């Protein structure tokens, strides 16, 4: 009755996402799955894509090891009928091509000026911690009761003409409107 497609990558992600984040590898894996899942509930403005066939660019600025975990998770994936391309960003100017940018806590502290660059584009900025959304980002990842949760600054997203689904907002620990 129900079709079952083996999409091993996704399943791995989902299985990982269901587990409490104990080890660091496990945590970044779950976070990568969250990043992928966020793309399903976010609408970018039309100017973000030149064509319907354009891929969605997921950018990461973090440890190379973590970045590789994310790359593994989103490899070959698609969302909203667009393929997902992974970029490891080391230059702030590269942000212009990104749609979603994950910046680790360390990278954010190291490059605070990158956020000014990020504000110029309709770019969903995902960072670490509850306070991240008050400072620079739009979505902040955190661990609550051993599970990964997130907070959303919807106001900032709206300023960048980005629409975050209410379904996603309903799951958020905190929403700034």
């Amino acid at each position, binding site marked *: *009755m*129900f079709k*079952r497609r*083996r999409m091993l990558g*996704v*399943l791995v992600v*989902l299985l990982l*996402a*269901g587990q409490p984040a104990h080890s660091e590898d496990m945590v970044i894996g779950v976070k990568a799955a*969250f990043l992928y*899942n966020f*793309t*399903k*509930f976010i609408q970018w403005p039309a100017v973000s894509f030149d064509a319907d066939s354009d891929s969605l660019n997921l950018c990461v600025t973090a440890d190379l090891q973590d970045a590789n975990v994310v790359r593994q998770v989103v490899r070959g994936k*698609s*969302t*909203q*009928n667009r393929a997902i391309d992974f970029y490891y960003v080391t230059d702030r100017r590269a942000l212009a091509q990104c749609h979603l940018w994950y910046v680790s806590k360390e990278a954010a502290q190291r490059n605070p000026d990158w956020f000014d660059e990020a504000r110029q584009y309709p770019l969903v900025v995902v960072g670490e911690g509850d306070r991240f959304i008050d400072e620079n980002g739009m979505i902040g990842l955190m661990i609550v009761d051993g599970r990964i949760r997130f907070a959303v600054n919807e106001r900032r997203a709206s300023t960048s003409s980005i629409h975050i*689904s209410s*379904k*996603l907002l*309903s*799951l958020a620990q905190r929403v700034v409107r």
Partner: protein
Amino acid sequence: MRVLDRLSVLPISRKILLAIIVTSMVVVVLITSVNVVYGWFDLKARAKNELSATASIFANNVSAALTFRDELAAEQLLESLKAMPQLDQACIYERAELNFPLFAQYRALNPSNPCPPVLDKVPEQMPGYILETQEVVAGDERVGYVFLSRSTADLSAAMRTTSTISLGMVVVSCFIAVVFSTFFRRLIEDPIHRLVAVTREVSSGGDFGIRAEKFAGDEIGTLFDSFNAMLEQIQTRDDDLKKARLELEQRVAETEQANATLNATLTRLKETQDQLVHQEKMASLGSLVAGVAHEINTPIGVGVTAASTLQGATEETSAAYENGKLTDSGLRKFMGTATQSASILLTNLNRAASLIQSFKQVAVDQTSSEVRTFNLRDYLDEVFLSLRPKLKKTHLEVSLNVPEELNLYSYPGALSQIVTNFVMNSLVHGYPDSTSGELSVVVEDLGEEIILHYRDDGVGINTTDLQRVFDPFFTTRRGAGGSGLGMHIVYNLVTQQLNGIIKLESEPGKGVHAMIRMPKTVSVKEAAV
């Protein structure tokens, strides 16, 4: 048919009442049934649509929770389904490697009826429940399924209420039908009752002058008009009938009177016929007497001549004797004359006596109805002897071929009359121009019976006349002295007196052949005349 037969004996008011109630009941029950059935399916379809819409919204809402595996959020969303108390189960299934295990369920809904552990166990149909399964899609990926089930108990309850109300409406409709039909049936019933009453009055009293009073201008009104018109027609015809009856009675009386007159005339006619028959018999006898007279005249005349000759010779001889002139030769001549005269006289007188004797017998037989034994051949000889004067004038030969020892015990007079009439008819009708011919009588002895054949070879009788030849007063020679009774008398004598039958055959130009079949011994009792 039995039902119709039973219904047909009901009074018309009952029939009208029954027709209205049955019709309205059938219509109301039909409409109500259709409404109830349609209502039930409509209700189920609406419930199904509602459930489907709920499942769709719920699947959409739960997609994020399922994507992020947020059970808490999923359970919060499930809580929102409290607003639908008719929901029995709400189950969320997540996508796993092999199948779709249960992710979350709304426990508060029905603790005794938990969700199936995997999606494969979810039934497609369940009696008394409406089921809905929808997939949960996030982005362009199917992340799970939601399954909702809803009891139809509330729908059944609603339908029960509707059915009860509908049943009530049927009862009320029947009641209203009874009330209205009771009111309206008078419009039909009263005029019909009035018409029935008038009909009874007319049939019992026989007064066709009564008229039914019309109520309205509808079909029953037309019936009244027609009935009245019919009564008028009957009245007119009744009057006509009475007149006709009087006329008929008068005509019957007239007819009876005419009948009586006719009967009297008929009686007179029969008397006249009898007289005529008697006269004809007498005429036949007269003819016989004339013939007899003529026949006797010759021997008597010869006798007279012989006697006169003897007288003259005697006187002449006597005078000669007185004068002494009687010679021997004269006496011898006288003696010769006397002897010859006496011989002639004797011969002729004997002849006359013989004739008289025969004629007397025939005459006596013709006038009497005496039954006696007689020799047929001798008797027929005598009859033809009596007819000789008639036959002499013709060129006809007569031949008799009768067995010698044939004796009959019968009515010879009747036989004489029959043969005489045959011969007379042959003479009068058969040989118009005195042509020559032959009459023959042949008798066959059959033991108990004889057949007498009488034939002539004259002109014969045509077919039309042959059929009427025995009818009384039928003659082709009425102006020439025929009475038309001769052959009628023959027929009566053969059939009534001789107790025989007669048949006449003839064709124009081939003569006549009459056959009489009769018993040798006639029964007197039968032949009483």
